[in-house]
């Protein structure tokens, strides 16, 4: 890849500041529409979540969060994210690396496959695991004979989460790595670095912001996934209930405070993700612009 100084002279970077042709009223209307949308669809639900969670006071709120079922739901969600995010980190880097830096047969097919979880309804992805690993499924009898429990237990939840979240890192990295090309790596290799050194000292620094961004999104989704996890969970309290599932169950039990208290944690997670992302962009804006390429 070209180093940043050269890159900043490239014409397409100048085009951002050029030519704002729309008249002022048009811009104001566009902005108003955008903000109204954000307010109605994002801000108001967020306010409702916190309002309902605190409807019966801070005492009821903390009591709801302290219940053992809720705590185990939080633990499980953290565990699932702690397993599936690193797995997808490794997968995402490998897939992006393969697709961006090499030419091989079936590349287009692999790219399509990576997008599959985005295009398939999460409920269907959950059902696929039921059909595979369920007692009446393809592998059900074999698994049972060997005493392996996947479905309606933590492994099933992890598998479903990995499936749903695996495009996030790869999708973030592929365009970035494609844009950066092989130049830096080739230079490193020709200077005598081995493969691992090349990755660690050359590729990784180039992609780190894109990677971090992908990991943040991946993590947010891993913790928030409902559909696929719901199908494979079995809904056993204290054992296989994740936070999103727990929210639904509490709500169905007329426990609005409890439901919205857990929902507020999930919303808090989303906010933290957003803030982290914004902070990163503010602090390392120039660098990110350089390495993310747009």
């Amino acid at each position, binding site marked *: 890849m070209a180093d940043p100084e050269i890159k900043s002279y490239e014409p397409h970077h100048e085009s951002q500041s050029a030519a704002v042709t729309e008249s002022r009223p048009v811009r104001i209307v566009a902005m108003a529409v955008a903000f109204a949308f954000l307010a109605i669809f994002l801000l108001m639900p967020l306010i409702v979540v916190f309002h309902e969670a605190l409807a019966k006071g801070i005492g009821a709120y903390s009591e709801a969060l302290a219940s053992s079922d809720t705590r185990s739901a939080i633990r499980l969600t953290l565990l699932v994210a702690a397993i599936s995010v*690193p*797995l997808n980190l490794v997968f995402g880097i490998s897939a992006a690396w393969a697709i961006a830096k090499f030419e091989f047969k079936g590349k287009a097919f692999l790219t399509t496959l990576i997008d599959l979880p985005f295009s398939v309804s999460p409920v269907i992805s959950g059902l696929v695991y*039921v059909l595979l690993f369920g*007692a009446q499924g393809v592998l059900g009898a074999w698994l049972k004979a060997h*005493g392996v429990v996947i479905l309606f237990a933590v492994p099933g939840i992890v598998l479903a989460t990995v499936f749903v979240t695996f495009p996030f890192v790869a999708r973030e990295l592929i365009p970035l790595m494609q844009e950066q090309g092989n130049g830096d790596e080739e230079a490193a290799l020709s200077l005598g670095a081995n493969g691992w050194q090349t990755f660690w000292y050359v590729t990784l620094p180039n992609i780190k912001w894109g990677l971090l961004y992908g990991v943040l999104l991946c993590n947010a989704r891993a913790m928030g996934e409902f559909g696929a996890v719901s199908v494979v969970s*079995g809904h*056993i*309290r204290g054992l296989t209930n994740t936070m999103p599932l727990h929210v639904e169950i509490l*709500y169905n039990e007329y426990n609005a405070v409890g439901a919205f208290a857990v929902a507020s944690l999930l919303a808090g997670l989303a906010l933290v993700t957003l803030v982290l992302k914004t902070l990163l962009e503010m602090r390392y804006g120039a660098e990110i612009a350089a390495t993310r390429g747009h």
Partner: protein
Amino acid sequence: MKRFLLGAAALATLFLASSGAWSADRLLNASYDVGRELFAEVNKAFVAEHPGVTIDQSHAGSSAQARAIAEGLGADVVTLNQVIDVDFLVKKGLVSADWQKDFPDNASPFYSLPSFLVRAGNPKHIKDWNDLVRDDVQVIFPNPKTSGNARYTYLAATAYAKEAFKGDDAKVKEFITKLFNNVPVFDTGGRAATTTFVQREIGDVLITFESETRGIRKEYGNDKFEQVTPSVSLLAEFPVAIVGKVADEHGTRDLAKTYLDFLYTPEGQDILARNGNRVRDAAVAAKYKDQFPDVRLLTVDDAFGGWSKVQAEHFAAGGLLEQAYGSR
């Protein structure tokens, strides 16, 4: 690579850990959607009498639970709200065919019925099923094609009409069609219908299980709603059964039996009654008599000749339910 290995190791540990989670003093009770508070209370009392025992709970829609168990959810016992869901497990070879004889009262330690909830003061003077087909009344219940709760409502209304019109099928059909026409929104499940009635304030009367109407009043205020018990309704049994195949694998059959027997003890029955369910024990029933108004209850067997007949005539594709629902 290191991370990958760590992840793989974690996953492997989980596989092993989860396969060893079962033991002879641990039961999983797979139950219907809104039964958690009830069974949390039951379990607490049961564990107090049997120290060292752990009861895990799983709650989802009754039919969804039956399907999950067929796919391998390791439930030792089921406490569902529809007989046909247990029958489904019989077909899958998980529950013995004569499960209804394993426990007293058709293996249904408690029961409920479709009942009415109206707004405070009962402004539309709704007393019985025939009030529901009046032009000025809007009725809320979920879609009988997706909700077991609403199926009971549909059957109860049909049973009422059959009696009222002395078996005149054309008139019964007209009655049901009129009833469906008075429903402004068909939600998919009981809870959604409750939200429509209580929070969106649509409709004059909500029809759902009596045990539910009590929960709603408790949650949203006794002064906002009134219970109305119709003159006649349908017995809704809440069946319990040991999932024999699973219990034998886990070595929990005895504990499972003790657990379900506990529901029939005076203590168990008292907890059930406190939570709005009608119970079998005469002494306990007498104690909570004023909470459960008298109502004549028909059974599916008496009114329709059994569940399999209901399934074939009413709920099957092109059956009577679809005809009435489709003709709206």
